[in-house]
């Protein structure tokens, strides 16, 4: 058994397990975990920025930070949360799960997949460098509305805004590459027998979300490139001094950035649809309608973008038109909510950590949907637009629903990804801290917004102090809440109890393979014979496996 006698063997031996996560791997599971871990790093970073901001906002005066620093922090918080956390973490989950769920050996284009991932650290490096250039990072908010984003007080060619635009454009390219891959994989590589109405709801939502990336991202990228030309090369698309039109930028920007909220929330809907049946031990109620409503949302989401511009240079008739289309989206969304409640109804509920996060996420989403309808109503939006009410609304969506769904997914599929069980106690602690923190942080933003506190302010009138102190305390609780999560993930991965292949007794192709799955996922391609979610029914899912 001496290695010397067989040098050939050494080079062929697989590298130690942890090292593959730092390599240019082509395995969708490795890439998925690379995305997850990288995005979590960004989540923590942007979260630290948020806590510094909440520190500033404990008192009305701008006493903790210079205003320029505060402005840079909220710009980077929003940018990193969206382009470094929400998109990559969901791409990571989808990357890991979609091939397994549809019975494929890998994504359609493994090399493209890896290339798309490795652009994300580059995006991070670009944004990090922007802290070091003279003048500091961009201070124009994640919207980067001109003319503010065209003001370059440093006079330098390489400035924070310039790097910001490069980072956003690169993130867009990475997402387009990912979208091509997902759409191809889902359309072409489902296992034999997996017709559309035998495809899991999560896969439907990923397809719906990635289609949005394909039609929306080109608009954002075009807007970013035009803004870059204005900023750097003296063109005048958006610069009013030279005859440009700043509102044109807003159309480019929101034509993508509204649909983008569905890129974020659709996979979260998919996760809810996967988790409720398992922990209620009932089939997903109205599965076909739930599946199809995702695609309806994709369609409608393309015609609502002007609701972000109700107080902008938007004429009355356009305000009314987009009010109507925006409100229509609540119909397919409402159908989903009802279906989840009906799935839970009369089930055999088990409140494990994934279920707790999914239920908490659903409650938060219902709340966010109600304030969303208020925002869609133009007269009300005219009052609360650009106030903390909007910030409260979208944080209920983004933190309360999307982050909760992501946590639910990570706990639920952790045994599959690592072969180990997480610690339930730490998981529950994580949930309760998250739920209380979310309510305390984001609920007070609604009253203070109704009172008239604008968003993006480093200082405010003393009448707003009470709600801001509450929100800051909630923010710090949310900061603390990630500690049990990190502890849990790291210690369980190293020394957790072995989980077995299907600890939840869940139905789905991914639960029929080993934990963690072999390199090629399936030794033998599964042949699917029944709809997913057959809880309470005794029929098998496949002909040849399990």
């Amino acid at each position, binding site marked *: 058994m001496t290695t010397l006698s067989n040098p050939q063997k050494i080079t062929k031996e697989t590298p130690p397990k942890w090292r593959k996560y730092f390599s240019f791997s082509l395995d969708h599971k490795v890439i998925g975990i690379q995305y997850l871990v990288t995005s979590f790093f960004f989540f923590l970073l942007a979260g630290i920025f948020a806590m510094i901001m909440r520190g500033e906002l404990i008192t009305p005066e701008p006493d903790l930070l210079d205003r320029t620093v505060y*402005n840079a922090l909220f710009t980077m918080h929003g940018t990193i949360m969206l382009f470094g956390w929400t998109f990559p973490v969901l791409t990571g989950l989808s990357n890991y799960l979609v091939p397994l769920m549809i019975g494929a050996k890998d994504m359609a284009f493994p090399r493209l997949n890896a290339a798309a991932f490795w652009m994300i650290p580059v995006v991070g490096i670009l944004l990090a460098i922007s802290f070091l250039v003279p003048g*500091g990072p961009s201070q124009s908010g994640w919207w980067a509305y001109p003319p503010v984003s065209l003001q370059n007080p440093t006079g330098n060619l390489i400035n924070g805004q310039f790097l910001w635009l490069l980072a956003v454009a690169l993130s867009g390219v990475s997402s387009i590459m990912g979208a091509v891959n997902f759409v191809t994989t889902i359309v072409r590589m489902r296992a034999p027998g997996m017709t559309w109405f035998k495809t899991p709801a999560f896969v439907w939502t990923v397809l719906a979300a990635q289609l949005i990336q394909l039609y929306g991202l080109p608009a954002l990228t075009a807007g970013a490139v035009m803004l870059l030309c204005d900023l750097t090369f003296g063109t005048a698309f958006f610069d009013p001094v030279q005859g440009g039109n*700043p509102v044109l930028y807003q159309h480019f920007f929101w034509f993508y950035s509204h649909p983008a909220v569905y890129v974020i929330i659709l996979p979260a809907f998919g996760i809810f649809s996967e988790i409720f049946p398992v922990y209620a031990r009932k089939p*997903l109620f109205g599965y076909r309608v739930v599946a199809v409503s995702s695609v309806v949302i994709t369609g409608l989401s393309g015609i609502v973008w002007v609701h972000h511009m109700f107080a902008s240079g938007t004429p009355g008739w356009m305000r009314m038109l987009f009010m109507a289309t925006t409100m229509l989206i609540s*119909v397919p969304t409402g159908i989903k909510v009802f279906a989840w409640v009906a799935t*839970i109804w009369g089930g055999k509920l088990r409140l494990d950590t994934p279920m707790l996060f999914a239920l908490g996420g659903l409650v938060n989403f219902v709340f966010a949907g109600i304030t969303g309808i208020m925002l869609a109503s133009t007269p009300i939006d005219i*009052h609360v637009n650009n106030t903390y009410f909007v910030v409260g609304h979208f944080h209920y969506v983004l933190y309360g629903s999307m982050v909760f769904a992501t946590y639910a997914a990570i706990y639920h599929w952790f045994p599959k990804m690592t072969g180990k069980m997480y610690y339930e106690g730490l998981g529950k602690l994580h949930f309760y801290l998250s739920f209380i923190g979310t309510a305390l942080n984001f609920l007070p933003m609604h009253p203070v917004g109704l009172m008239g506190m604008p968003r993006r302010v480093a*200082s405010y009138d003393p009448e707003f102090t009470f709600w801001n102190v509450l929100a800051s305390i909630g923010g710090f609780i949310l900061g603390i809440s990630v500690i049990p999560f990190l502890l849990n993930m790291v210690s369980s991965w190293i020394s957790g109890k072995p989980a077995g292949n299907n600890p939840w007794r869940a139905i789905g192709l991914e639960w029929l393979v080993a934990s963690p799955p072999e390199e090629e996922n399936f030794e033998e391609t599964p042949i699917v014979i029944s709809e997913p979610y057959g809880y*309470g029914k005794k029929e098998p899912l496949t002909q040849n496996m399990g």
Partner: protein
Amino acid sequence: MRTKIIIISAITLVVVAMSVWMGQIAYSWLPPQASAEAVLIDNLFSLLTAIGTFIFLGVTGAIIYNIIVHRAGRYDTSDGPPIEGNIKLEIIWTAIPLVLVFIIATLSYQTYDKMDLHGPTEIAHLPHMMPSAYADTGLSSEATTNIEVDSKQWAWVFHYPDKNVTSTELHLPVDQRVHLTMRSQDVIHGFYIPAFRVKQDIIPPKTVDFEFTPIKIGRYRLRDSQYSGTYFAAMQTDVVVENSEDYDRWLNQAKRQKPTPAPNQAASEYAQREQKDAIAIWDTVVPAPSPMVNYHP
């Protein structure tokens, strides 16, 4: 069956009562109703709060009920009933949001129409279907006060063309419709008076028209609502709504005063900043010089 119906009706009644109550409470979350528009918006908001409360309590109530009643026992590994769908139910709950949305959209449209804000009218103007807000209040729907609003990084300046008076504080006569002609010298600023519930972005290089009617004497706050750079948060001033005599007196008094530089928070913070050499300070656009006005507080 009988008791079940009674229990469900009782619960529904309680939820309806709570929703109506929340709809009433909703008024207290808002600033004073200092304009005719505010009254309209608040009524709509109150209604949506009531509807929203009903939906929220309904959904969370159903979830909590199931968590309490339908928990699986510790060693219970059985499945729930395999109910996969119910066409009738699914049609009903597609119809409910559709109808609700239709009602909310119609009411919102009527409210918006009555507000008659003017605002940007490029491309085409929305034809008027409803009598505007002033029909109900007996106030004139013709604007009698014209004021020019000039915004810049970071100050508001108001010009009263009739008397050629400039001021950094906005004075308005009560119960008269005002017409603002708003301009920006640099970036987009947002004209926002929470007590009036009105807001409009000022987009350079255009002139934006805007109309509303203050109905309550008092002192309110005007804030910038559209992020406009470093000293954005400090771009605030007072709005004084007074009766016509006080208003005329103020205007005549201001007219007699020579223009002087108004105090300006952005300018003074900027001056101090040049002196202190703190570590983390990044470059900023230099504030426009303090405006020269006849009147400042």
